């Protein structure tokens, strides 16, 4: 499997995926630069995606619609923040209505894609996703809450383990 590692940090609200592909860096980049290839990777197997709008440039937007097993639709969009082909791009991924308009009531996820050439035919990819930041969340991080949270979760696990 091309995935080498997945790190999840509940407290920092991040997930980092490490993967390696047997292909040149430009070829891997094309999976995102070409909307027809992107739509084949983006939706889960049971929710195929169709990319509607595709402007992978800083300030650009990508919109997509995924269709579920019962015909239900889930639309989303990217706000493209940074692009340094073929090494890195940064997006905010959010939910949209059926016409592709961002739903600003829903949180967005910041996703940083990084590609590194390991050899002429091998490319490493790192994808760092950070869940939406709420004011409370930011405050929580500033307060150095991580330790309290770890402690609380440890205690909760202990209590749950004792419950018959």
């Amino acid at each position, binding site marked *: *499997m*091309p*995935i080498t590692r*997945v790190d*999840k940090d*509940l407290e920092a*609200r991040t*997930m980092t*995926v490490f*993967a390696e*592909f*047997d*292909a040149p860096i430009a*070829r*891997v980049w094309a*999976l995102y630069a070409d909307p027809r*290839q992107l739509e*084949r*990777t*983006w*939706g*889960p*197997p*049971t*929710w195929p995606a169709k990319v509607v709008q595709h402007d992978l440039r800083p300030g650009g937007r990508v919109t997509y619609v*995924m269709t*579920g097993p019962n015909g*239900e639709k*889930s639309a989303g969009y990217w706000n493209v923040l940074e692009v340094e082909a073929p090494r890195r791009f940064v997006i905010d991924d959010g*939910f949209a209505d059926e016409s592709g308009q961002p739903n600003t009531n*829903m*949180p967005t*996820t910041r996703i940083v894609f990084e590609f590194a050439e390991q050899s002429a035919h091998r490319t490493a*990819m790192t*994808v760092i*996703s950070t*869940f*939406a930041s*709420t004011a*409370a*969340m930011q*405050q*929580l991080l500033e*307060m150095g*809450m991580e330790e*309290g*949270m770890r402690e*609380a*979760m440890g*205690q*909760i*696990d202990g*209590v*749950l383990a004792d419950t018959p």
Partner: protein
Amino acid sequence: MVIDRKAGTQALDEVFHALADATRRHMLLTLLTQEYSVSALARQYPMSFAAVHKHVSVLERARLVTKKRCGRESIVRGTGAGLRDAQLALDAFEQLWRDRVAQMDQILAEDSPD
């Protein structure tokens, strides 16, 4: 799956918001070991009944505690459901990315006709 992701992200935000406050963390730990009526719980904290009630509501929204009516009283007890939601949301997100990477690999495999 996609719908779960939407619900999961909201659940995650509510759990973190609930746990961001030291008083609420303390209440949660208390309520995990013993159930209390809201008024009995309020007597344990140097704050108004209304303030305690508000904290309990935040914990309840995050599914960290459950409330049941018992006569005139509301009895509150802790549950791990909210925290499990947060963990499940991350697990669902990991699966989404495992699928994406497998699909990327599949497209790349189609490149080499030889």
